[in-house]
């Protein structure tokens, strides 16, 4: 589901359908997180990506396209060489992954519960993540202001 959705999202000719395929791919990734017992990450994935980014993309598709018109085909040699590069790079990476032996840690596992995540994220001790948390909040504020500044409609005098 993830791979199929991804392939269809980058090859579909109709941009609205590409957005819907992207939605299915992201939902598949969320189900993968559920399968790994990381419920909080799965919930964040669904809320932010599926509920936020895909809806934003679909809105911008509606704003910039007449619905149902097809995009032009990619240039043949460009598609060919990009496909070849992607396939060979995938093969090379998979080769390295299969050759490499991973050594898991021997320590006891920590439950990835919301309580543990929240405690470590907001702690100011050695392994706390309070500084990146604050930096990200400043980044979000800057993005908010920047979006408004960029997308605002400047009134011109008739």
């Amino acid at each position, binding site marked *: 589901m993830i791979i199929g959705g991804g392939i269809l999202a980058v*090859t579909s000719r109709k941009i609205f359908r590409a957005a819907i395929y992207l939605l299915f791919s992201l939902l598949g990734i969320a189900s993968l997180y559920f399968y790994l017992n990381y419920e909080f990450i799965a919930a964040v994935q669904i809320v932010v990506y599926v509920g936020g980014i895909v809806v934003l993309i679909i809105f911008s598709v509606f704003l910039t396209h007449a619905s149902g018109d097809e995009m032009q085909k990619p240039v043949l040699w460009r598609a060919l060489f990009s496909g070849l590069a992607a396939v060979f790079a995938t093969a090379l990476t998979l080769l390295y992954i299969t050759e490499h032996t991973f050594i898991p840690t021997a320590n006891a596992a920590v439950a990835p519960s919301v309580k543990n995540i929240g405690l470590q*994220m907001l702690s100011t001790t050695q392994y706390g993540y309070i500084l990146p948390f604050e930096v990200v909040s400043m980044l979000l504020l800057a993005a908010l202001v920047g979006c408004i500044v960029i997308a605002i409609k400047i009134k011109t005098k008739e």
Partner: protein
Amino acid sequence: MLFISTALFFIGVYGFLTRKNMITMLMAIELILNSVNINFVAFNKYLYADKLDGLFFTIFIITIAAAEAAVAIAIIIHLYRSLKSIDVDDADLMKF
């Protein structure tokens, strides 16, 4: 797990290289970021289950991806207003 994320990453790279439409390029970038997230979560689950660092990286990447998508869509809409097109080939105003 790593197979899925590798394949998804290079699907995203392929989409980024072949598309000319800015919104679809943005979608390809989202695929790439998601493959990175899968990697972080898988490594955290199977190799370093005693820490939560992979989860934090995933959360921060999701946050930054959301901010980046919002800014990119604002830029795309502004470009569409001034150029009536969202192909990257048409946006050559800064070319010199």
